[in-house]
Structure formats: C-alpha cells, structure tokens
C-alpha cells in the first residue's frame, strides 16, 4: 500500500460558537481517488477549507506528505502541490478565461510553466481555448466548471480537491466532468472528491468516507459503501 499523502488528524473546526467538525480524522494515500460523502451541512466544504487553510482547525493537525500544515500559510499551500476546485466555481467573473487560468499559476513554482500548462488545459478543454478572451462570468455553468478545474490544474498539482463539481450541471455535463476526473486520476493526480451525488461519486472513486454532523460515520471501499444498507437508505433512496 502506498504512503499517506494527506493525513487529517482529529481536527476541530468552528465558525464562531458553532463547531462544525469534531475530531475528524481520515487519510488519502498517494495515487488514490477518494470520495468524501455527506448530506448538506455535514461539514464537507469546511473540511476542504481546513485543508486549504481558509478555515484553520482549532485543534488537531493536518499533514501533507508528512509535513504539518500548521505553520504553512494558506497562500503557500498551492506551492506544495495541492489545489482546490471550490464549490460554486468561485471564478473571477470579470476577468477573462485566460486571466483566470494564468492566475492559477501564480505561485513561484508554477509561473515559469504557464505556457505549457495553458496548452495542457486547452487540450483537455478545447472549449476554453475558444472562449479564452471572454470574461469568465459570461460562460455557461459547464464551461465555468471546466475553467475552475483548468485553473486548479495550472499549478500542476499532485493532489486535487473538487468540491461538488457536478452541482447545478445537466446530466450530460456531469458525465463529462466525472470522465475528466477519472482521466486526471489516470494521469497520476491523487484526488479527493466531495459530492452529494453519491451514485456518481462512488462510480468514479476507489474509497469513500461518510461524515455526519462533522464526525466520521463510515468508511470503506466504494463497492462496500454502495452496498451498505444504511447508505442506500439515507442517500440513494433505495
């Protein structure tokens, strides 16, 4: 079994007085594609915000490649090789597609390779090449999702987190996004996928965790989770 790339160790995260995550622990190993599952408000997005440093944990530790992230400022974490495709894309709506992508390579280690990575992203999403001079706010939902994934890829991450990438997309586009995620994983990127669309998420991933009100509830291989009666009842409506 390969080594742990990301170790989340008993973290607590609170917004003011409201504690969202309680002693949450899990691991993602090098080369894996893992899904973090849970209903609305379970703490999935908060978990990703803790990993990226936008909402640092009040207790516990997060390690990336064995190094504690406590002393790593959020803006320096992209340079370690992690990238997030945030929920709701969070693009810079008034900047062009190309500017959005170029900013994805803002970190010192990524900047020299802007040209090469732009080409990679445009090969992956030819639509973005056509629209590169348009402002991102004028793109359709699917194109915005491509742009958000493209922006995250511009820093050549070894670890990619995606927060509800299928949210608000038509089924055909969801297929495309999931296919892209599978391709990126096949290309060697370790992936942590956060989804409400449990069915699709378990199809594409190898393992999964279920969190409920900020606590780890269940974990197992995707096949096991898909067969788990509790999950089938709670999330799949079966």
């Amino acid at each position, binding site marked *: 079994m390969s080594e742990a790339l990301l170790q989340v160790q008993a973290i607590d995260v609170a917004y003011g007085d409201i504690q969202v995550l309680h002693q949450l622990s899990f691991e993602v190993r090098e080369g894996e594609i893992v899904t973090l599952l849970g209903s609305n408000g379970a703490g999935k997005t908060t978990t990703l915000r803790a990993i*990226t440093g936008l909402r640092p944990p009040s207790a516990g530790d997060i390690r990336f490649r064995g190094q504690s992230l406590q002393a790593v400022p959020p803006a*320096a*974490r992209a340079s370690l090789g992690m*990238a997030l495709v*945030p929920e709701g894309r969070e693009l810079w709506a008034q900047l062009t597609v190309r*500017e959005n992508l*170029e900013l994805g*390579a803002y970190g010192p280690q990524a900047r020299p390779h802007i040209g090469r990575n732009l080409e990679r992203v445009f090969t992956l999403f030819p639509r973005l090449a056509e629209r590169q001079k348009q402002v991102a706010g004028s793109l359709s939902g699917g194109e915005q999702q491509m742009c958000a994934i493209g922006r995250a890829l511009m*820093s050549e991450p070894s670890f990619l987190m995606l927060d509800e990438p299928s949210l608000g997309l038509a089924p055909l586009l969801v297929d495309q996004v999931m296919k892209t995620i599978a391709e990126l994983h096949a290309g060697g990127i370790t992936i942590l996928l956060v989804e409400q669309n449990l069915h699709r998420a378990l199809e594409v991933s190898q393992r999964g965790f279920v969190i409920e009100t900020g606590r780890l509830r269940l974990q197992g291989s995707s096949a096991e989770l898909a067969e788990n009666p509790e999950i089938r009842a709670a999330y799949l409506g079966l």
Partner: protein
Amino acid sequence: MERFIDLAVSAVLLAGLYATMAYGLGMIYGVLRVVNLAHGGVIMAGAYMGWVLHGRLGLDPYLSIPLVVGASYLLGVGMYKVLVRHLPRGAAGGPASLLLLFGFWLVLRNAAYLLFTGNDQSITTTWSTRSVALLGTHISATRLAVLGVGVLVPLGLHALLRHTHLGRAIRAVAQNPDSCTLVGVDVERIYTITFGLGTALAGLAGLLSATIFAFNPGSGSGELLKSFVVVVLGGLGSVLGTGIAALILAVVEVFAILVMPSYLTAAVGFIMLVLVLVIRPGGLFGHRVLG
C-alpha cells in the same frame, strides 16, 4: 467664443488632476472595500511634501514627483499595517473604518497646523507664470504639466493592472479574495500594496494641485468630495470611466461659473453627487471593478 475655448481648456486641464485624485480612492475601495476618509488628508500632506522639498531644497515640484509618490506609498503601507489591517471589512466594518480613517485625517491636519501654521501656501516656480499658446488661447505651463501627469499616471496604472501578474492579482482580489489564496496569492500583501498605491496617488494629486492652487492644513475636504463624485460617476478604478467622470465634473464646475455666482460653484460637485446617486447609483458605466 474665445471665452468658451478658454473655459473648455481649463476644464480639460483640471480633469487630469481630478482623475489622479479619484483613482486612488476608487482603487482602495474597489479592492479593500474600505472608504479611505483620510484621502483628503493625504492630498494635503502631498502638497506640503512638495512645498517643503521646493522651499528647503529648491527641488522643482515635477522633479520631486518620485520622492512624494514614494513617501506617500510608504505612508499608505504604514497606515495599512498599523491601522486598516485590524479593521473589519465591507459593510460590517463601515463605521469603524470611517471613524478611524477620519481620525487619522484629523491627526494629519493638526500635525500640519503645528508644523506649518494655518497660513495659505503655494508652490511657485520660475516657470509657474509661463504659458503656452495653443488653440488660439494661452495655457499655463503648470496646468499643462498637471494634465500630462494626470493622463500618464492612470495609463501606467491601467497597464500595471492589465498586463502584470501583480496587477491581475490585485483585480482578482477585488473580486474574490478566497480564490486568490487558493492559487497562492498572499492577499494581505496585495491589500498592503493596493493601499500604498492608492495613497501614493493621493499624495501625487496633492503635489500637482499645490502647483496650481493655494493650500493650507485644512485643505483636502473639497478634494475628497470631488474624488467621491468622480468615483461614483465613473465606477471603481475603471481608468477610462474615471477619466470621463473627471472630465464631466471639471466641465460642469468650470462652466457653472457662467450661470451662477462663483461662491456657489463649490456646491456643484455635491449636487452632482446627489443626482448621480439618485438617478444612476451604479455609476455611468456599470459595476466593473478595476478594468
């Protein structure tokens, strides 16, 4: 007709100054969502910096531009690091930041009273009284120089914002700071630089204004008001919008002399501000930030 051309030329020349003045205010608000009420105080401070450099060291005000801009930038960085950084931002931070920055203005003003007394001053150089014949009218050389700087500086900023990594990061922070952190932009650093740049522009505007108008430690409130009018009219940090809005304000002010007593022309900017807020609260050119 000659009178008309005279007035039109004065309006255009004044517009360059107004654009420089307003751009700093718009930039800081656009990126940090903080209304820099100390803007007028920094304009006044810029005027005194130029006055001291000219009076003590005999430095021509146009040669002292880099010094005044540099000093004002550092003043802005200091203001951000010591004061503004600790304030709540956006709608929630409104009252706190307004009061604090207004207080800072009072400190600047009273420091100037202590250092320079309340007397009116101006910067007069050997070429202050020279003029250039153009379009059948005579244009003062200083006003022409002010216009030149007032056009070049916003164009330079536009190039910075459009074509550099730093500029793109500044525009992106204005729209979505969290996404900036995710791609490795140190948002605090961008806030510091932006506050410094906005303050540097205010200092520059003060220096330019001092070569045309008299000033004293109480100066700056009229300039702040005019900056507000231009920002509200022209949008936040849109270079073209700011330029056009500055021109509109200058034209209206200058031509108001024809129809109302001169002591009322100062109110023109205020009337325009109210009209714009009522009729087009989003500004003449929509909501684009820093484009």
